[in-house]
C-alpha cells in the first residue's frame, strides 16, 4: 500500500484538519463529530441539507458543502457510514427553522444510521431521500436494492440549488425525490482500491480483466470481463442504463466520472465515445460533466450517470455554486 498518511486510524481526522486549514473562510469543520459545514450553516433562512457517508469518495460529500449545495457533510470512517451522533450534530447545526433534508446513499449501513439519527432527533423536521441509482444491482428482490452512487451528486446539486432559492422542506424533498427517481448509473473498475486500514487491494484483478457493475466501495462487481476498448466500454456502460429507463423523451444530463486514479485524458476520451453512443441511440445530451465527482479512493475506472430532466431541473443544475464545477 502506497498512500500519503500518518496512520490508518487517523486518516479521516487528519483529512478534516487539512480541509479546515485549506478553507478557513468558507467552511467550519467539527473535528469532534467529523463534520464539514458551511461557515454560515444554520444562520441562513433556508432548508438545511445534510448528506454523508463513508469517507474515501471525495469530493463527495465534503467537497460539496457550500452555497447552492450541502449545508453539512457527515464524514464516516473510510467506506463506513457515519454514526447517528454525527448525523444528529449536523442536523442540529444546519437547522434554521425550516427543517432539514437528509440525502442518503442506499446502503444498509447508511440507511440504518441515518434512520437511527432521524428517530433520535427532537424539535427539527427531517425528511430523508434515499438515492439508489446503480443499475448494476439488477434484482432488488434478492438485494437490499440498488446502491446509491453517481446519482447522489445530481440529487445534491439540484436539491441544493432549490433549497438555496428558498424552497420549503416539502418542495426540496419533492425535487430530490424526483431526481432520485430519474437518475441511473453504471460503473467499471480497472483496478481495485486499497482501504488504508486494510493495507491491500480489496480485490485482485489481473492485467487482462475489468470488473463491470462495481459500486464505490471496492465491492467486486457483478461480472469480470476482458478489458475492452474505450469504444466498447462506452456501450457496456451505457447499454444497461438505457435498458433500464427512457432517456429519449427528455434532454439528459450526463456525467462521466473517474473513480480516483483515472486520468482526465482517459475520461474525456471515454466521454467522446459515450456521447457518440448516446446520440446514436436517440439521447439528447443537454449538459455534461467529465471529471472526478464521486470516487473510490485510488481505484482506476469510471462510471456513467444519466438523468432525463425537465426545464426546472436543468435550471437548478445550471445554478452556479462555488463548490460544483
Amino acid at each position, binding site marked *: 500500500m502506497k498512500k500519503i498518511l500518518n496512520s490508518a486510524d487517523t486518516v479521516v481526522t487528519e483529512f478534516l484538519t487539512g480541509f479546515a486549514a485549506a478553507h478557513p473562510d468558507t467552511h467550519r469543520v467539527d473535528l469532534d463529530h467529523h463534520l464539514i459545514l458551511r461557515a454560515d450553516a444554520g444562520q441562513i433562512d433556508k432548508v438545511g441539507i445534510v448528506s454523508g457517508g463513508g469517507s474515501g469518495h471525495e469530493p463527495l460529500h465534503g467537497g460539496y458543502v457550500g452555497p447552492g449545495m450541502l449545508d453539512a457533510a457527515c464524514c464516516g*470512517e473510510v467506506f463506513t457510514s457515519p454514526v447517528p451522533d454525527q448525523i444528529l450534530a449536523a442536523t442540529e447545526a444546519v437547522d434554521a427553522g425550516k427543517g432539514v433534508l437528509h440525502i442518503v446513499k442506499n446502503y*444498509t449501513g447508511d440507511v440504518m*444510521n441515518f434512520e437511527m439519527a432521524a428517530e433520535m432527533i427532537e424539535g427539527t423536521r427531517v425528511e430523508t431521500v434515499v438515492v439508489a441509482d446503480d443499475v448494476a444491482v439488477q434484482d432488488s428482490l*434478492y*438485494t437490499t436494492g440498488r446502491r446509491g452512487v453517481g446519482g447522489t451528486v445530481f440529487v445534491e446539486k439540484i436539491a441544493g440549488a432549490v433549497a438555496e432559492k428558498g424552497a420549503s422542506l416539502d418542495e426540496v424533498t419533492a425535487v430530490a425525490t424526483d431526481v432520485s427517481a430519474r437518475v441511473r448509473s453504471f460503473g467499471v473498475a480497472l483496478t481495485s482500491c486499497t482501504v488504508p486500514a486494510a493495507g491491500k487491494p480489496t480485490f485482485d484483478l489481473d492485467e487482462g480483466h475489468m470488473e463491470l457493475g462495481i459500486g464505490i*466501495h471496492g*465491492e467486486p462487481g*457483478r461480472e469480470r470481463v476482458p478489458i475492452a476498448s474505450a469504444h466498447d466500454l462506452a456501450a457496456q456502460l451505457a447499454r444497461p442504463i438505457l435498458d433500464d429507463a427512457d432517456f429519449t423523451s427528455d434532454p439528459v444530463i450526463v456525467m462521466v466520472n473517474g473513480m480516483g486514479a483515472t486520468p482526465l485524458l482517459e475520461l474525456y476520451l471515454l466521454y467522446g465515445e459515450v456521447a457518440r453512443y448516446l446520440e446514436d441511440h436517440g439521447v439528447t445530451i443537454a449538459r455534461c460533466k467529465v471529471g472526478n465527482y464521486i470516487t473510490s479512493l485510488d481505484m482506476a475506472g469510471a462510471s456513467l450517470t444519466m438523468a432525463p430532466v425537465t426545464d426546472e431541473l436543468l435550471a437548478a443544475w445550471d445554478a452556479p455554486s462555488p463548490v460544483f464545477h
Partner: protein
Amino acid sequence: MALSVDQAAAWMAKAAQLIEADADRLTDLDRQIGDADHGLNVRRGFREVATLDAADYPDAAAYLKKVGMTLVSKVGGASGPLYGTFFLRFAQALTGEGAGVVEALGAGIGGIQARGKAEAGEKTMLEALLPAYEAAQAHAGERMWDAVVAAAERGAEASVDMVATKGRASYLGERSRGTMDPGAASAVLILRAAREAMGA
C-alpha cells in the same frame, strides 16, 4: 439465569479480546464479499467498549445499555446499528420481570431483525445468531453455552454456501457464494466470549 454486571463485563472484555485477535480475518472475509472493513468496524467499537468501567454501572442492564450506545456511536456501517441494537434490546430485556439471559438473547436478536429486516438464509450475522438462540432455548441449563456456540459455529459455516440477499454481499449475487459471512463470523466470537464469561 440472571446476569451480574461482573459477568457482563467479563463477556465484553473477552469479546474485545477475541475480536482484536481475529479482526484481520473478519476484514479479510469482508474484502472477499463486501468492502473490507468489518473487522475494523467491530474492533473500533469493542476497543471503545473495553474502556467502559463496569463499576460505574448499577447492574448488567445499565452496563450493557451503555455498550449498545457505544457500539451505535462508534462503529457505523451496517454492523454498528445492528450490534448496537442487539445490546440495547438485550439490556432492556434484562430489566424485564424474571427475564434471563436466554430471553435477552432472543430480544437482542429480535432487535437485529427489526432494524435490518433480514431473515434466516440471507447470509448475514443471523445465520449464526438464530441457530444460537434456538440452541439456547433447547439447552437452557445443561451446558447451554456449549450448545449455543456450537450452533453458531455450524450456522456461520453454513453461511459459506449461501448466496447473500441482504447487506453489501448481496450485490455480488452468485459470486457471494463460497465465503463465510463476516458478520456471522463476528457473531460467533461474541457468543464464544459469552461462554467464557458465563460458563459452559
